[in-house]
Every structure is written in C-alpha cells, then in structure tokens.
C-alpha cells in the first residue's frame, strides 16, 4: 500500500525533529553518564539536573562568531558541514521503527521511506558524508586541518570496508536488502545477533571507527591533538560537524538494532508490535549507552594499531563470516 506524499512529508518533519532532540539529549546523557563514571556530576547547572544544557549549548554555538579563515575556499568550506549534516540526517530516513499503522484512512509506514535497497542507501549516504569531512579539512587551507582530514579519511575508508562486509551475513540470512524484510525475517526465525554474533562484533567495531568514537577517535583525539579536520571551524559550522557525528552514531545504533536485535519487535511477543517505536527506542538507548560506556573505559588506540586492527583482524574476520554464512545458507 502506497503512502500519500504529504503524509511522508509530515512524518519526515517529525522524525527530523525527534532525531535532533535525541542528538541534543544524547550529548547531555553522554556527559552525565561519563561524569558519573568518573565520580563527577556532569553538567548540573542549566535547569533541573542540567536538563537545559543542550539548549544553552545551542544558543552559545549559534551566537558564536563563525570564524572564516582568509585563505579558505569559500564554497567547499561552507558546503562541507552542510553535506555531512545532511547525509547524516538523510541516512536515518530508511531505518524502520514500526510496523506501519492505519491512521483514519491513510496508511502510514514505519519509516520515512520504505526503500527496497535501504541497506545500500545507508552505506551510500554514509560514504558521501565522509566527503564532508575530507573537503572540510581541505578547504580550510590549513596544514593541521589537512593532516586531520587525511587521518579521518584513512580511518573511515578502511573501516567502511569491514563495516559493509560484516552486514553481508545478515543480508544473506535475511535474503533481502530491505530493512523491513530483514526485521520481519528475524521475527519469523531468530534475532540475528545469535547466528550472526561474529558479524555483530565486526559491525560494532567497524561502527565505532566509522563514527570515530573512543577508542577509535583518532580523527578528533581531543586530549592529544587540536581537533582534526574541523580545526578551522567554529560556531554553528563546527556544530554541524558535531551534529553529523552524533547523528551518524544514532543512525548506526539504529541500524544495529534493525539488523541484529529485531528492530521494532518485542522479544517473543507479536501482539505488541503496534508500539514498535517504544521498543526500538529502548534498544537504541541501550546500544547508545554501551557506546558511552566504551568511551569512558578504553584508552585510545595508536594510529598503527588502528590500521593493523582494521586491515589484519577486522577485515579477514568479516570476510570469513560472510563466506561461512553464504556456505551455510546454501547448504542448510
């Protein structure tokens, strides 16, 4: 059943706002949780429990001068954060969060757009998003930014291969590239985190590196380097880069929920599917918490360790996982 175009439009507006809200409060949650893990309180001044902190941060960022280096190339310099933020937001549009509902006489699907090749679309948009990081560092016309974007580029490109290979097993088992199909298949058979445990681990590591989070946060490495590709950015342009990073993290966690943890389904019960977004959000929050937990616990990898792990461990394991899954799917 097709969806009316203006229903999609309204839905996308709601989803974008929810996503931005989730991003804002993810930053707060991260700072709070990290603080508690380090025996600190985290932000607790703006509003009760620091709940207004994201708004205060936003006001600060918007009012701050957007510094523009004299030597920077204007168009790519301005475009780069926009590209990153746009692709990050767009990638979430295909992630299903519900089974679809019938509201009055209109059919509403459980994602912004139901694309039969949703998985490829997510990866394609992610790859375009990397251009934002590369171009941003390059257009700043500063050697530190250029080195930073080189570092980022090398890391993201290396780990994207493993990331894409690690979901191949899921695609083979789900026998579809459509995320809705994959979710349905999981409910019929088994959530894929059990048969695809290796794939999940590969996806997890690849995902951390792709979103450049600790312990793979070489692109930023705030304790050792001055940022990276966004050294010359400030104000809301920097904010857009930061937003892209966090929304990529949310999208990736959403993808992990969809591919390995049964998407919007409640475990064992089918009757609760109508409340899909709630279960989806709960799973999402748990995975995001694991990402934050990881950040507080593990120290940053050295650059050569990062490259060695990516090419010599993650890539062979992911490839092997895909091959073995393919064999089992054909033979069994």
């Amino acid at each position, binding site marked *: 059943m097709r969806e009316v175009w203006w229903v999609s439009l309204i839905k996308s507006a709601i989803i974008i706002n929810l996503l931005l809200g989730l991003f804002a409060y993810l930053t707060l949650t991260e700072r709070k*949780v990290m603080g508690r*893990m*380090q*025996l*600190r*309180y985290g932000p607790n001044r703006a509003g009760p429990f620091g709940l207004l902190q994201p708004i205060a941060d936003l006001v600060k960022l918007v009012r701050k001068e957007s510094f523009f280096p004299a030597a920077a190339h204007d168009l790519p310099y301005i475009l780069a954060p926009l590209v990153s933020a746009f692709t990050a937001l767009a990638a979430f549009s295909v992630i299903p969060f519900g089974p679809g509902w019938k509201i009055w006489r209109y059919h509403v699907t459980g994602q912004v757009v139901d694309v039969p090749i949703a998985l490829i679309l997510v990866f394609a948009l992610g790859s375009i998003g990397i251009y934002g990081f590369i171009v941003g560092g390059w257009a700043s016309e500063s050697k530190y930014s250029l080195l930073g974007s080189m570092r980022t580029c090398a890391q993201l490109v290396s780990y994207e291969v493993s990331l894409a290979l690690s979901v191949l097993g899921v695609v083979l088992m789900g026998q579809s590239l459509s995320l809705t199909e994959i979710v349905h298949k999981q409910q019929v058979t088994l959530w894929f985190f059990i048969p695809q445990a290796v794939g999940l681990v590969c996806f997890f590591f690849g995902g951390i590196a792709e979103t450049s989070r600790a312990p793979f946060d070489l692109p930023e490495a705030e304790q050792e380097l001055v940022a990276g590709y966004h050294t010359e950015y400030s104000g809301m342009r920097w904010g857009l880069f930061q937003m892209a990073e966090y929304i990529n993290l949310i999208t990736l966690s959403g993808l992990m929920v969809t591919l390995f943890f049964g998407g919007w389904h409640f475990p064992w019960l089918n009757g609760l599917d109508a409340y899909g977004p709630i279960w989806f959000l709960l799973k999402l929050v748990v995975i995001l918490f694991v990402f934050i*937990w990881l950040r507080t616990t*593990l120290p940053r990898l050295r650059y050569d360790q990062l490259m060695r792990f990516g090419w010599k461990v993650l890539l062979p394991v992911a490839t092997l996982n895909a091959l073995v899954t393919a064999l089992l799917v054909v033979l069994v």
Partner: protein
Amino acid sequence: MTPQPVGSLRGFGVTFRQIFRKPITQQYPEYKRPVYPRFRGRHRLHTYENGLEKCVGCSLCAAACPADCIRVVAAENTPELRVSPGERYARIYEINLSRCIFCGYCELACPFDAITLGNDYEISEYSRDDLIYTKDMLLAPPIKRTPVADAALYDTPIPYYENHS
C-alpha cells in the same frame, strides 16, 4: 603490548560500578571548602585597638614587592591629625591586585605587622580598575567571609630531626 581481552573487560566493570557511587565533586559556589589557615588571599591593613593605624608609611612593603604592585605615599602626622603612632602615616596606600602574586613578602617586610595577607580569594571584578584596592578598602573588614579551617587540624608534629639532633 599484546591485547589483554580479560583485563579490558574487567575495566568495564570498574567504570560501571562508579555510577552507583557518590561523586566526590564539591559544588563550589554552594559549598566552599575551608581554606588552610595560612592561606594567602587578599591583603588587609590593621589598626591598633585605640583606632590608630599600624602602618607608618615606611614603604618597605613596596620595596619588597617583586610585582611592584604597592604604592605608598606618606605624610607627616600632626597633633591635629594623628593617624598612626609613628612620625608619619600612609596618606595613600594602594595595592593593584591584578598584579599581585600573593607571595607574602610585604607582610614579611613590614616592621609593624600593619599588612597581612587575609584569606579571601573571591576577588574577581569586571574591570581592572576595580582591582586597585585603596587604603579604605584594605582597612575595612572583608565583605565576603571565607571559611577557614581550624588551625589545630594543620598543626604539624615535631619534625624528626629536632628530637634526634
């Protein structure tokens, strides 16, 4: 270094356990940790009990000051205007607290214990001009009270070498 998967996993337990412990943060503006009794904060000028100022305007503090932040202009005491028990008194006594390094040499140099370093450390201002403290401000008791720890808590035991020399 070889990877240590078990050790790393134990680390996760450590970080997770901290969530349930009480943070050790001291919430500063609400709670002010008592300062050490000999803490060197903003200066104070002292008077005798009969109201005369201890300072005799000798400028030794200004001479001792490594940051050159003290300015003293002395004037003669007269029978009509007796400010200090000595021959002269400080007509102008200014300390530029934006230059002061709180070393305490001024109180060491002072022959009459007229200047001492107090305990106040909340002395930020919006303007540099406001950081030049005049004699009246230094003579007046500080407006903000800084909690000071009990000196007995910090009494040092007799050093080892004094008993075994």
